[in-house]
């Protein structure tokens, strides 16, 4: 997961990019077999112990999904992101707000 968090005029803009196939479970591969569903279901962000953003997601999002969201916050503090997919794999990362 790549995260960029920048503050300007009291607003923190967070950009997230996650390498993930986002398979819907509706596609077939070259052999004609169904590619099993494998996509990120939840992405959440917290700042100073509060959830500032939560995404409930689906395979209708592009592969290697991107998200951008904003909230009122301060430079120097941290924003923590977590995601989990339908196969219960996930990742967490905390970044400094620049």
């Amino acid at each position, binding site marked *: 997961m790549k995260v960029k968090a920048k503050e300007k005029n009291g*607003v923190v803009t967070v950009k997230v990019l996650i390498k993930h196939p*986002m398979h*819907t479970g*509706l596609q077939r591969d070259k052999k004609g077999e169904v590619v099993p569903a494998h996509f990120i*279901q*939840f992405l*959440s962000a*917290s*700042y100073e*112990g*509060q*959830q*500032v*953003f*939560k*995404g*409930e*997601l*689906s*395979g*209708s*999002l*592009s*592969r290697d*999904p*991107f*998200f*951008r*969201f*904003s*909230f*009122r*916050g301060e430079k120097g503090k941290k924003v923590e992101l*977590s995601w*989990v997919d*339908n196969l*219960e794999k*996930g990742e*967490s990362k905390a970044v400094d707000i620049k």
Partner: protein
Amino acid sequence: MNRRQLIKRLALGAAALTLMPLKALAAWNQKAFHSEFVDPAVEGLFGSKDAKPSVEIELKAPTIAENGALVPITVRTDLPNVTRIAIAVHENPRPLAAAFELSPLSVADVATRVRMAKTTDVTAYVESDGQLYSVTQQVKVTIGGCGG
């Protein structure tokens, strides 16, 4: 970390806002996301399919998408107290693409990239002060001629 730990973490983050049963928070809204049509999907998500068209929502989407696999979408609004924003791609096999939950600290401005099976309407839904609003735009999806 495993799902249980992660869900617990998400729940702790949300605990400051509401007291939702852990199970409800953990369950992905399959009913809404697997719905084949927009209305039941929206109803499954918001509890109602009646959204008021609003000119106060800015839906930024290309008129003609370069490639249906990656269509950049931004939803912005100055409507007050936005709690949720959702994006639906009408003629996708499963129209509901994403549902975003905001907080009192949030600025109502979200962006993502969607997959579009074909030319169809894209609707952005905004839940503000308990009311549901929407704006719709058609996005054309062409099939490029020079693949490989």
